[in-house]
């Protein structure tokens, strides 16, 4: 897998345009099998290559972008029919930052529709395949982003993570996936799923590349009222830093029955590596872990139902031709445009926010969320970093869980708490299982301590 530095060398020797042309050719070839992209925007990529001045930090380096991050003038549809034909009239802030760094932006990494999913199967463009086994899912919702990096199509990708949508596909595809602290990266231009949970994050094949990309996309943005004004550290400096004496917490609620044996085995091997480098392990407890999925599946769909109310065929996207009046236009446009999982979550969210149910569902979930966040605050008083599995299983087969939404939701059990607490979390590859499928382990740290994740992650 080519690193950023190797790309830089190649660009220095050959120039941006030829390397960009190679990237497009490679993607066209590999994507025949893995379908990591909704569409391959070759014209956009080649035009972009001509604009690059080679001053920026990521000059000419390809970065795939999930189909829910607005790129001006380029189809951005959240893999949904409801946004068919939509070309945003503005760039997301992360896109402006990538352009300033002269990155070669590769649009339209495939995803679950509106980021609702853990398998990349609900995309209206069809599923992405796991590069390690084409019959299996790459994970979701940022399945295309993960697969594009794992297959070598591109060295870097950005995605979004609301309940695990970066970390879970990173684990399933064997790459590094980082969800920063809530507020670390601007959400301006990220098409919203759940506004109190969403974060844009990174995919890469090595820790230094992860740090580089994070340095580019992180930072305060006045256009995002949830963006936090904290300086962006030199994240690269944390990679390879000594971990002697660091205390790593192992929450007992995350090491339970039902996790595949090989995942536990790979994690034990990783723990030995970390111990050999001087880290200490302590058992901790995050007592409200078991309520995280329920809490998330009230808050997420509730916020989503509100955020998706705007897709009604008035301003953009699909407008049904069947409508006799305005209400019918809303109903038909939405019914025709949304897939089943989106409808399910919109129904769930609308129900839990409706009169008579708000207290029993949404308000209660927000209070349980406080308890989950407090569990982490307490844990970080005794440890520097928390280590857990990222997922209970490795990649499952395409079609295996589509009939049972609840089973699909339970796959997010280890990733959801970090979103509820707003803390940064990273999935780091740690070997393969007996079927040669990638295994990932998850690191979590205090708010705005991405440096800890890079430091410990690079020691694995």
């Amino acid at each position, binding site marked *: 897998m080519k690193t950023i530095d190797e790309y830089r060398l190649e660009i220095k020797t050959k120039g941006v345009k030829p390397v960009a042309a190679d990237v497009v050719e490679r993607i066209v070839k590999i994507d025949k099998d893995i379908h990591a992209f909704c569409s391959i925007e070759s014209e956009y990529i080649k035009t972009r290559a001509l604009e690059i001045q080679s001053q920026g930090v990521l000059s000419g380096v390809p970065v795939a972008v999930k189909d829910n991050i607005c790129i001006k003038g380029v189809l951005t549809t959240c893999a949904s029919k409801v946004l068919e034909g*939509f*070309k945003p*009239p*503005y760039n997301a802030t992360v896109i402006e930052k990538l352009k300033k760094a002269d990155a070669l932006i590769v649009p339209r990494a495939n995803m679950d529709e509106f980021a609702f999913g853990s398998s990349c199967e609900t995309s209206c463009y069809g599923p992405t395949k796991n590069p390690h086994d084409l019959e299996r899912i790459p994970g979701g919702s940022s399945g295309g982003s993960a697969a594009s990096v794992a297959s070598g199509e591109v060295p870097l990708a950005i995605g979004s993570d609301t309940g695990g949508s970066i970390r879970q596909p990173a684990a399933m595809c064997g790459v590094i996936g980082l969800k920063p602290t*809530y507020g670390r990266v601007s959400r301006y231009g990220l098409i919203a799923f759940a506004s*109190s949970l969403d974060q844009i994050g990174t995919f890469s094949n090595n820790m230094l590349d992860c740090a580089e990309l994070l340095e580019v996309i992180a930072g305060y943005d*006045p256009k995002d*009222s*949830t963006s936090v004004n904290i300086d962006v550290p030199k994240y690269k400096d944390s990679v390879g830093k000594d971990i002697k004496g660091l205390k790593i917490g192992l929450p007992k609620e995350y090491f339970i029955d039902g996790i595949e044996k090989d995942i536990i085995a790979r994690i034990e091997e990783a723990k030995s590596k970390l111990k050999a480098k001087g880290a200490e392990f302590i058992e901790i407890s995050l007592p*409200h872990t*078991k*309520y995280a*999925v*329920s*809490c998330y*599946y009230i808050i997420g769909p509730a916020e989503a139902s509100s955020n998706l*109310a705007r897709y*009604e065929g*008035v*301003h*953009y*996207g*699909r*407008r049904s031709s069947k*409508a006799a*009046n*305005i209400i*019918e*236009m*809303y*109903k038909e446009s*939405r*019914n025709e445009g*949304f897939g089943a999982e989106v*409808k*399910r979550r*919109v*129904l*769930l969210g*609308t*129900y839990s926010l*409706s009169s008579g149910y708000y*207290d*029993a*569902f949404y*308000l*209660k*979930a*927000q*209070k*349980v*969320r*406080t*308890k989950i966040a407090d569990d982490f605050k307490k844990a970080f008083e005794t440890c520097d970093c928390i280590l857990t599995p990222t997922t209970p299983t490795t990649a499952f087969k395409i079609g295996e869980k589509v009939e049972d*939404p*609840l089973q699909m939701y339970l796959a997010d059990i280890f990733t959801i708490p970090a979103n*509820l*607490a*707003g803390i940064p979390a990273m999935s780091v590859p740690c070997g393969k299982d007996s079927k040669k499928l990638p295994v990932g382990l998850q690191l979590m740290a205090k*708010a705005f301590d991405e440096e800890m994740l890079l430091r410990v992650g690079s020691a694995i």
Partner: protein
Amino acid sequence: MKNNNHNISEDTVAAVANLARLSLSSEDIKLFQKQLAPILEYIAQLDEVDITGIQPTSHVLPSMKDVFREDIVHECLSNEEALENAPDKGDGFFKVPQVI
């Protein structure tokens, strides 16, 4: 407050679909009722948690209070840019079926 009845009926699904502006067929209503019922049953486990005296978290960041900006006009989208993706437009407006 113990709420043991988390069963959702087909009528409720239909009512919620109306609120959510979705024109579901009767087969869809049946299917979603079947799929949502176990989810709601699972979510009911939150009833176990003691939430007395706990403040709800609507924002994870303690700094998230009254985030304002100066009332200065910055660059905006032009009328044309705003209408670029409109399914139907005219005279600088979005066009929709009759509302009133």
